[in-house]
């Protein structure tokens, strides 16, 4: 690298290890003065850890941070602020009932005799607002203004503190397309005024549009830094995803049968924001095929599954299960109509951690006549059933059926859930990130089970963030981006790079519906 360059921040050979995982492995990131530098990587690639190190939330095990060429030690966020490093978090840190002005000066108020000097502060903020084209209403309460304006308030907060290095952590996740365009303009304006920006994102089109250079991380490792003008979105996608060892699953071509699940124009509200998280999704899943919903985390997959399984009410659209309309059916009815559900969060939804393994294995079925008579649980039957599942699905635990679920390993907890859901022998299996956090052996086992279920004529809807899993397991891929299905791909005919483009919103098919004539 040339040393002539004027670097405002240098993070050299940063290594940060957590128990069991190297979150950052020898990562170097150099930010030039007056540039927009994008940091690209999948979930879990180590972007957040690296920024936390820069912000003083973590101490690196190895490596050095330099500010203006001089080594510095950042022990906590206050040190970072003193070095004029500021951050706009993905979820804004504003006080809803305070005015915009009060939010901006909070923590950096000038006082005279203990009184806040609002007049001078207002003058300074108004001046900044004009200079950088950040229109805000200083007297409005934060709860009354739009998300876009809230973000401008966050930016003003950084400018008020005379920060030179501005970190934007996935700033577009919560914005509308218009607001995104506006933000891009603001960012360009900021660097023109001499600020330097670190822009964390996994949306390729935004990075291509706004950044000067891109540093790519993958699985905690540094992949490379490229000049944006000299690269292309597919190239970045390849760098981000990589060609790692792929777990190959033996499977014959799918033999799709009748439509099992049919979804039309489904809308599901978001828990976090006021708009819908799923915006008019339509697709079919047939018996004997594995349909995979691919996408970057937070593009509506979780809400889609909640809508399908009844954990969240759908705001519009229809869901049909084997021809039966279940759009408004309660969870138990959907389960009876034929949906089994391997949930995304196995501790929150999948298991009652303080219950024993056998109690967990009958979580949905305890009211069936084989497990109860006259309202009394048939403990003998439950035990026999649990012992069979434990044997058949190789669930390992300290005390067999009586093991408290909490004390089991993550892999065996997941095996128990999968055993329970598969053994109910229902026509549709919805599996959400079924292999998350598991070791290679467990992943292989679960993949084989899912394929076996497909071959037995089940319809499988798989939601996964792992590209390897998506490519290997699915018979059909539906890509979700910002609550919509933007593409239907055949895993045999597509490439990881192309998939990456769809996932990052850089490419979309018109009328991608996932519905086959």
């Amino acid at each position, binding site marked *: 690298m040339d040393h002539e360059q004027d670097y405002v921040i240098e993070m050299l050979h940063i290594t940060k290890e957590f128990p069991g995982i190297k979150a950052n492995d020898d990562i170097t990131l150099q930010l030039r003065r007056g540039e927009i530098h994008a940091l690209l990587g999948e979930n879990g690639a180590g972007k957040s850890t690296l920024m936390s190190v820069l912000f003083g939330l973590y101490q690196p095990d190895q490596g050095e941070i330099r500010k203006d060429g001089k080594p510095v030690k950042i022990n906590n966020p206050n040190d970072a602020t003193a070095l004029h490093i500021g951050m706009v978090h993905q979820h804004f840190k504003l006080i809803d009932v305070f005015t915009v002005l009060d939010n901006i000066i909070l923590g950096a108020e000038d006082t005279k005799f203990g009184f806040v000097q609002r007049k001078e502060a207002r003058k300074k903020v108004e001046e900044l607002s004009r200079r950088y084209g950040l229109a805000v209403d200083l007297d409005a309460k934060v709860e009354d203004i739009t998300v876009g304006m809230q973000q401008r308030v966050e930016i003003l907060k950084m400018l008020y503190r005379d920060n030179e290095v501005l970190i934007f952590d996935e700033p577009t996740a919560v914005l509308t397309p218009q607001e995104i365009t506006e933000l891009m303009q603001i960012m360009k304006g900021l660097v023109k005024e001499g600020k330097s920006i670190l822009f964390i994102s996994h949306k390729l089109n935004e990075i291509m549009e706004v950044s000067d250079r891109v540093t790519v991380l993958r699985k905690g490792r540094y992949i490379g830094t490229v000049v944006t003008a000299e690269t292309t979105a597919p190239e970045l996608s390849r760098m981000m995803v990589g060609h790692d060892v792929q777990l190959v699953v033996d499977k014959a071509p799918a033999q799709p049968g009748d439509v099992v699940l049919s979804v039309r124009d489904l809308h599901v509200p978001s828990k976090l924001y006021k708009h819908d998280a799923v915006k008019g999704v339509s697709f079919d899943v047939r018996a004997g095929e594995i349909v995979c919903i691919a996408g970057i985390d937070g593009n509506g997959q979780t809400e889609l599954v909640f809508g399908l*399984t009844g*954990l969240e009410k759908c705001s519009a659209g229809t869901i049909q299960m084997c021809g039966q309309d279940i759009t408004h059916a*309660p*969870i*138990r*009815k*959907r*389960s009876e109509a034929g949906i089994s*559900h391997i*949930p995304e969060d196995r501790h*929150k*939804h*999948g*298991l*009652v*951690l*303080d*219950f024993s393994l056998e*109690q967990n294995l009958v*979580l*949905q079925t*305890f*009211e069936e006549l084989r497990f*109860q008579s006259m*309202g*009394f*649980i048939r*403990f003998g039957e439950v035990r026999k059933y649990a012992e069979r599942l434990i044997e058949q699905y190789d669930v390992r635990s300290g*005390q*067999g059926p009586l093991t408290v679920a909490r004390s089991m390993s993550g892999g065996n907890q997941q095996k128990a859930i999968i055993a329970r859901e598969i053994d109910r022998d229902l026509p549709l299996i919805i599996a959400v990130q079924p292999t998350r956090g598991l070791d290679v052996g467990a992943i292989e086992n679960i993949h084989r089970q899912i394929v076996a279920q497909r071959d037995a004529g089940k319809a499988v809807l798989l939601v996964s963030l792992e590209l390897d899993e998506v490519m290997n397991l699915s018979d059909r891929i539906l890509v979700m981006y910002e609550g919509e299905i933007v593409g239907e791909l055949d895993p045999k005919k597509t490439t990881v790079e192309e998939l990456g483009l769809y996932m990052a919103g850089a490419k979309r098919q018109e009328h991608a519906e996932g519905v086959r004539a």
Partner: protein
Amino acid sequence: MKKESFWSKPGTRSVLASLVAILIGMLAGGIVILIVGLTNPSLGIKGAWEGIRLVVAGLFATGRDATGALTFGFNPVTFGNMLFRAVPLIMTGLSVALGNKAGLFNIGAPGQYLAGTAASLYIALSVPTNVIPSWLVWLLALLCGMMAGAIWGAIPGMLKAFLNINEVLACIMTNWIAANLVTWFFEGSNLKNVLEGTKSGYIYKTATVMNDIVADGVASTVGANVPEGATIVATRGGIATSKLGLDRLFAGSQVNGGIVIAILLAIVIYVLLSRTTMGYQLKACGANRYAARYAGIQDRRNIVLTMALAGSLAGAGAALYWLSGNTEFFWSTYQSLPSEGFNGIPVALLAINNPIGVIFSATFMSMLSVCGQKLTELTAFNEYITDVIISVIVYLSAFMLVIKTWISRLHKGKAVNK
């Protein structure tokens, strides 16, 4: 599979933890007695020693002999009274324990207890026993007491289930609503004791026999002695829980069949929680509401159901206490809530929410209050000393987990030494 040793079983540890809490509570009480005794010249070390003996073994105190020394032995009166007073505590303890098992903190037991009080007293004192046999009136009063408690419990349950209002808040408010409603209800009723002139402010005992008569064209209510020439319109009252022979075992005490019913109900709740699909659902909702919902269990229905059941238990506690026949209800309750309701919380805590354990912890609490009574009867100490013990135990109940960890550490230490 390795068989667990007796000491490493979680059940054993829980019981041990409770016993440790009780022991420390007793010790604290002892220290207070010692301090009070030593600083008070009329008591001295001798008085303190007597006080400590009474706190520990007050149940067996029989009085003082000719030399003025305390005597101990089996005392059927105190024993019977302990059992009698345990009844409402068992019921409110069950009420709180059931809520806890389902993840709901039922601090509304006092209100539910009051609702049960009003309903059962009203039925017992108003339904004419010359028309309906008194045993049926008794049963009706008990059932109505339970029903009123259930309704009073279901209100915060519904607020929680449908409007997501914290049950603790709703319970505290409904407690005071109940206190005022009950006062207002009895103020307007004709159940205030006017036959016994000294009993102003009290409702009739349910055992009181009242006759509504018409004499010389004037209607009035008299006691058991009906004046000559009067026509009896209706006979009311005369309701009392059957003694079931317990009065012979504990002669001279207030004990009655209520204790048997309370123990039976505790067993019913135990079976409900541990052996039925309903108990399974309640516990699933309590342990992980999200997983329960995921599995298709209707968590809202379960919340209402749990609170109604818990309320009915507290209501039954009230009915069993007031229907004994000899208890008198001071109807002006709007300034204070019945302590039986709140004491259900330490009872349940001490029993670690086990319905069978509740029988023992409630009996223990009631023993402490009997000891307190003996303390005032036989020495210059007052009964509030036992409140100190109870409050220390309540504090320690909150530290139960810490105590459990100590025990398991001790046990582990021993295992290593071997």
